[in-house]
């Protein structure tokens, strides 16, 4: 490796992830040397117990703040402890830690403010439901319309940010379904966003938070707030 080692924090938000959290962290530790921090978002299952018994570095939020609040805690931690980069990694095992180096390398070489791990930059074998792919296509079009940015996988939570974006997120981050809204906000502030191809596997355990009713709320909330972010 050339140049000084950059300090990288992997943020793993976990809400009731007893089925997969240990496996996710073990896999991460096996493939990388990066620091990580699990943010236990007020889980009511055995997540906390498992984290403790396995001696996994984590913070426990006393109440459930939702995905946005949990991830933001990680960004605050990273900003406060002087990390150069912060990566978001899902606790359910969908994100492959083998792709981490790729994300780090891309952000270091491009100097972008954020690099998103995308399932669609090249054929990655991703098979989601038709509804999900339609949703992703819709958000992709929305972002393109609002910002001119071409993002193939705007709902991907597998993303790395540099110091500038980290500090902004530490202070301002949406509460629920933050991925798309954040991109519009970043584009408005003139931040640079890039994508790099990653593989995603089906979740290891737990259940997806997206139900038919919620997906309608999701689409509407994200659309309205993306429009708002465009102006405020």
């Amino acid at each position, binding site marked *: 490796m050339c140049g000084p080692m950059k300090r990288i924090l992997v943020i793993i938000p976990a809400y009731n992830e007893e089925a997969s959290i240990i496996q996710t962290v073990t896999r991460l530790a096996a493939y990388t040397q990066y620091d990580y921090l699990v*943010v236990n978002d007020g889980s009511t299952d055995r997540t906390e117990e498992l984290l403790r018994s396995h001696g996994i*570095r*984590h*913070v*426990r*939020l*006393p*109440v459930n*703040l939702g995905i946005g*609040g949990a991830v*933001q*805690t990680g960004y*605050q*931690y990273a900003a*406060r*402890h*002087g990390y150069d980069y912060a990566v978001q990694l899902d606790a359910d095992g969908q994100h492959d830690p083998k792709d981490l180096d790729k994300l780090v390398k891309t952000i270091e070489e491009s100097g972008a403010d954020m690099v998103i791990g995308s399932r669609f930059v090249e054929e990655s074998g991703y098979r989601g439901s038709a509804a999900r792919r339609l949703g992703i296509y819709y958000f992709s079009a929305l972002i393109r319309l609002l910002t001119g940015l071409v993002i193939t996988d705007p709902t991907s939570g597998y993303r790395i940010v540099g110091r500038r974006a980290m500090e902004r997120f530490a202070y301002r981050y949406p*509460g629920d379904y933050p991925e798309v809204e954040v991109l519009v906000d970043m584009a408005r502030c003139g931040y640079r966003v890039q994508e790099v191809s990653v593989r995603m596997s089906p979740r290891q355990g737990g259940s997806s938070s997206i139900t038919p009713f919620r997906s309608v709320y999701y689409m509407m909330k994200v659309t309205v707030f993306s429009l708002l972010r465009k102006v405020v």
Partner: protein
Amino acid sequence: MDRIQMLSVMLALLFFILVFGFIKRQRFRERQAFLWIMLAGAGVLTAAAIPVLNRAAEKVGIAYMPTLIFVLAFFAVLTLLMLHSATLSREQERLKLVVQELAVLRQEVEDMRELIGGQEAGKPLTGGAGLRKPAHDPARIHTLREAGRSTE
């Protein structure tokens, strides 16, 4: 002053007294108290000014004067609701920040405990096993420096 107007004024005054009682018992914080005092005061004024309102309604083309009062009251209540929503949002945001800060600080405290000798959570930091070593113990100072570096 006819009977209905007297009744209105009395009801409005009653409400004013109720608000005053709440403030006296410190049920509201200053901003909220001020808001309610203003609203109660407006109620009393409205009740007292019924003849004026009658003329005003006629001028703006409202045939049935109480409608004017309803319209005004509706906007007053709507504004109040919006102010409450704004307050609630602000408090939620503050609470979120407090929760996040608390979680990170607790982790840092636990790291420190571990560092000064594997003290268990819930026990006071002073006088425990970790502090038995004198402060000038070079090994301990070294570990503390290391810690300072990794938590900075």
